[in-house]
């Protein structure tokens, strides 16, 4: 079971966990960090309350860009079938 592909898989699973923590921090942090004041004194960005803009719009776009980046540069392609693997090593 000490498949070399599993090392890659484990690394990528950890990246997934890190991404989800970043995702949560942005989403939750902006929402309750900027939105906990009195709603009638909110500042607005592009028509949306600032907390909403940063947490749900900019935060989401940032996550998508981050995910594209992570996939392109940190994820490795591996074969899934055992016989293909044995040909490599």
């Amino acid at each position, binding site marked *: 079971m000490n*498949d070399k*592909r*599993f090392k*890659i*898989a*484990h690394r*990528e*699973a950890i*990246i*997934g*966990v890190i*991404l*989800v923590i970043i*995702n*949560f921090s942005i*989403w*939750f942090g902006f*929402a*309750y960090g900027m*939105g*906990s004041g*009195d*709603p*009638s004194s*909110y500042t*607005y960005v*592009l*028509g*949306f*309350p600032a*907390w*909403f803009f940063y*947490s*749900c*719009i900019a*935060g*989401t776009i940032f*996550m*998508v860009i981050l*995910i*594209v980046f992570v*996939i392109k540069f940190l*994820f*490795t*392609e*591996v*074969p*899934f*079938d*055992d016989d293909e693997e044995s040909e490599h090593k």
Partner: protein
Amino acid sequence: MIHWQVIIPLVVFLVLIFGIGIWANRQVMQSNSFLQEYFLGGREMGGFLLAMTMMATYGSAGSFIGGPGVAYNTGLGWVLLAMAQLPAGYFVLMILGKKFAIIARKYQAITLIDFLRERYQSKTVVIVSAVSIILFLFASMAAQWIGGARLIESLTGLNYSAALFIFAGAVLIYVIIGGFRAVALTDAVQGSVMVIGTIILLVATVIAGGGISNIMSDLVAENPNLVSPYGADRSLTPLYVSTFWILIGIGVIGLPQIAVRAMSYKNSKGMHSAIIIGTIALATVMFGMHLIGVLARPVLPGVEIGDKVMPLLTLKVLPPYLAGIVLAAPMAAIMSTVNALLILVSSTVVKDIYLNYIKPTASDAQIKKASFYVTTVIGIAVVLVALRPPDLLIWLNLFAFGGLESVFLWPVIFGLYWKTGNKYGAIASMIIGITSYIYIDQIMPSVLGMHTVTLPIILSLVAFVVVSLLTKDKVNTGK
């Protein structure tokens, strides 16, 4: 009040879906590995198909009908809550990821339960899994069926039973004849319809409301809390919102209908592009539909039944032919969820119960017959239940979500990543997860202000780890 211009695009949509079902049936009939083809589409999905089928399976009646209705009454806080679903687009594929794909092939697993059976070598694990899949997914299928029938009812003016039969008939036929491949292919069409419909309706609603700033000031004038993250009645506390994240964001890994998709793709390239496409599509639909619900408030004031907000709004802000396309979106969302559940429940009965315990020696022809037969019987049974529907669609749905997550989350994750995890741990985790979930749901739904699913997930985690460690020596004989 039948709007023919609205109905025609819907009919075209249905015909297209049927065509796909018939085409997929040819593949099923030609395949030399019937089980793998019928229940897993031959493990051939590429990136776009995989992304769309994950997104479409996940996005259900709740996202298109129920969700916007709640957002209408709650405000931007509900959009915030809905965005907790973003991880569903990338997290499942990254966590289950390559390891699950490799091991599933090694085990020749066709269902999630196949994987659990091979990993834990336990009959009890299989039975508990199968029973919870059948019970919970049957319930959530019924809920979706009801949503679909209600939607047709409100659009066409047909009565509920007739609407239910049309809807159920449409879905049943292509799923039964086409299997998983038909499900995945129609999901791709349905997923695209969902994304396009969301964008059209969002733009039209913003225009009808006179721009975002205008709509926001209308909302503030009515009740400033509508634009706060706390919701109109300030009930969305940070603790509740963050624990809700567990249920709809990361716990999704424990949903069998999602997990099974993580073993159906062709290669790692497909998986990579699916993560990107899936996240973008999911973000668009979840953000768009829920925001639409909020924006609808000034545009279409005074809607009393939340579920009617989205259909009424569509008919109000769009010309009829566009309304037809947009209303195909919730229909697509419902169909794509139902079809996935139906094929999953059927695979559980045929592969995990019939072939494992009732008739392991069944011939190919017998398996074929059993598969078509079981899918049909389950489909019809759900329709019969939906004829006299229990009321709370969202509750049923969320109950199934939480229940499945508390059963499967840890056995799947530890099954992949923790060698010491064993069958005793898995059984303890499943049973404690499910009983504590039902108990907490019935007795004290929001313990200490947290979402119901939080404690069961923590308890089942503890149970898995503790029991596995305690029984460590017992299972060494197996390997």
